[in-house]
């Protein structure tokens, strides 16, 4: 491997490690915001751990498991790439065709009222 390549890669890895650290330095979250573009609405994770939302193409089913990981269980989108992504935690899940964004939110709310 050439010297320049190695220096370049090490620099990138260092940046990556720092970015990763800053991400996880913030408190881990079990709260999620679900944006539904078709309705222009934002939902929070429901107590029932199962949310059905109507996007551009139809109903998407979003579920959470015991470990607070989220996944899109069913989606009307053609390529199903959001369903294939499987369980996620701390990563936004996005279904572009159906206009659904599931965003983990860190420390934004201490509690929820009106649940």
């Amino acid at each position, binding site marked *: 491997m*050439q010297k*320049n*390549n190695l220096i*370049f*890669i090490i620099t*990138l*890895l260092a*940046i*990556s*490690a720092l*970015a*990763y650290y*800053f*991400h996880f330095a913030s408190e881990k979250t079990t709260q999620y915001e679900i*944006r539904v*573009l078709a309705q222009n609405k934002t939902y929070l994770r429901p107590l029932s751990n199962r949310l059905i939302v109507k996007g551009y193409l139809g109903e998407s089913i979003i579920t959470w498991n015991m470990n607070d990981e989220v996944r899109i269980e069913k989606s009307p989108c053609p*390529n199903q*790439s*959001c369903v*294939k*992504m499987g369980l996620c935690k*701390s*990563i*936004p899940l*996005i279904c*572009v*065709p159906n206009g659904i*964004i599931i*965003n*983990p939110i*860190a420390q934004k709310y201490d509690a929820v009222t009106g649940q």
Partner: protein
Amino acid sequence: MIKQYTTLAMLVASAAALQIVESPLPRFLPWLKLGLANALSLYALIKLSTSSGIIVAIFRTFIASILLGTLFSPVFIMSFVGALSSALLMGLLYKAFSKVTNEILSISGALINNFSQLAVIQIMFAENINFMFHIAIMIWVSIPSGYIVAKIVNELLRRTADV
């Protein structure tokens, strides 16, 4: 002249084909992919000219999305912006630094490709995406994929050295 056009057309065609083949493959995140089509932009950039690399990037996203039926959809905008910005950055680096290697070019191209697609999502959906985490993930994905792409380009250049 005609020979150059023919080469360019062939590159655009194969790049579009690669992009179509790659699109149904499973991926970790919507904006993270191997980016094999990028190899042909880079090849055009080195073998022909900077503008050729950009032309390959623009045309291949158009053709691929026409064939995939996603023209002017959010998916198309993401891949168009990604491919264009990566071709622009690779061209710029190639012109600015004489010592730059193909690996560095292709890894930076892959990075800026992923990053600008993420930026498109941020702008289009006005979402507060956790950039720190994505930068970390992107680097991990871009290094191997950029490296593979660079190896492919090196091999292509070696085999077509006398063309």
